[in-house]
């Protein structure tokens, strides 16, 4: 039986290292790796639409070739700001091989930890307009009416936005593995 999860609480910033939100930082593990540079941002809100200003968002993604075992270190961590906003700088992931000889659409996994979350919430960020979105096995496991909560929209060059609503109208789809 696995150890029980407990909330990260409001003071997790003691393990916040703001530079981790930039996966392309000059002194970081990915300096010099080629790919399409992107910014991913979004706002985390609660059931009242109020910003979650104390959340920790973790990112996990494949490299531009869709690999998890290459040189690219696809992990980032970001604290939400006073408006509940997170922002990562990274390389756009490639399609990831799935079972049945199909490819998953390019995607980034986001995990949320915060006061009031007794265990993490896991979701995915997809990119609007990707042809592979149509055949993606995870997107297809989500009812069509809610699929849009996983699809980031372009917001300026190389910038994609995906807001996350924890509860209520337009609630983000969360995943269990």
């Amino acid at each position, binding site marked *: 039986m696995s150890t029980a999860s*407990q*909330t*990260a609480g409001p*003071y997790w910033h003691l393990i916040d290292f703001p530079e981790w939100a930039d996966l392309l930082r000059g002194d970081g593990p990915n300096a010099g790796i080629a790919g399409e540079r992107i910014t991913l941002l979004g706002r985390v809100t609660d059931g009242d639409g109020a910003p979650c200003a104390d959340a920790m968002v973790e990112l*996990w993604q494949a490299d531009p070739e869709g690999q998890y075992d290459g040189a690219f*270190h696809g992990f980032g961590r970001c604290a939400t700001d006073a408006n509940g906003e997170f922002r990562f700088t990274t390389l756009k992931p490639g399609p990831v091989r799935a079972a049945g000889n199909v490819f998953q659409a390019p995607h980034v996994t986001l995990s949320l930890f915060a006061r009031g979350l007794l265990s993490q919430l896991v979701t995915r960020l997809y990119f609007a307009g990707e042809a592979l979105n149509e055949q993606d096995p995870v997107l297809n496991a989500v009812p069509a009416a809610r699929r849009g909560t996983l699809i980031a929209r372009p917001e300026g060059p190389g910038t994609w936005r995906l807001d996350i609503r924890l509860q209520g109208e337009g609630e983000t789809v969360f995943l269990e593995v």
Partner: protein
Amino acid sequence: MSYAPVAPGSQPPLDAPAYGSTHKRHPDQAPIRIAPTLTELAAPRMTESLYPSNANLAKGPGWEAQGERIIVAGRVLDEAGRPLQGAMVEVWQANAAGRYNHERDQHDAPLDPNFKGEGRVFTDAEGWYRYTTIRPGAYPWRNHHNAWRPVHIHYSLFGQGFAQRLITQMYFPGDPLLPLDPIFNCVPDEAARSRLVASFDLDITQPEYALGYRFDIVLRGRQATPMENPA
């Protein structure tokens, strides 16, 4: 490969009425269960070269924290009892007076300029981790009238698969606040709850130096249900 299902009662619900902060933050909809893909079977490789370790929160060059020095050690295992090597363990905690070195913590207790309260260690080949710190204090948290958190150290763990990611809290044996704490008590299964409580350990205790506590952690295991066409 897949992850073994979570044992009933072993994990807290997201909607826990006694814990006020869950009210507006728990999703109304059930999560959608997906078959793990390569994304969930892989995991970031957290190495000491990328994330330097810090195994002593109590003392450094030219400084020493106030409070009762303790040593905490334990093993990180999967559900099959196999040790997890190279697991990254981050810890954070309040100081001896029950105050976090954090701008949002306004509890009227003294800050210790020599205690930041943040550490990072990695498990060895047998799954062991170990760090030295000071015993944290209890602190009030306004969840209900006269609400005090039991003494605890926060833990963040990365294993070898994405589904092994865990954030939890370690509690101390004999704490009278444990039966009163909504966060601790949100874990339904009593045995699962009790495994969040460290045990005093005379073998970890060092003579003339510090008491030792043992805290083992179990991360989700894999089960061998082959995918139809493994990637």
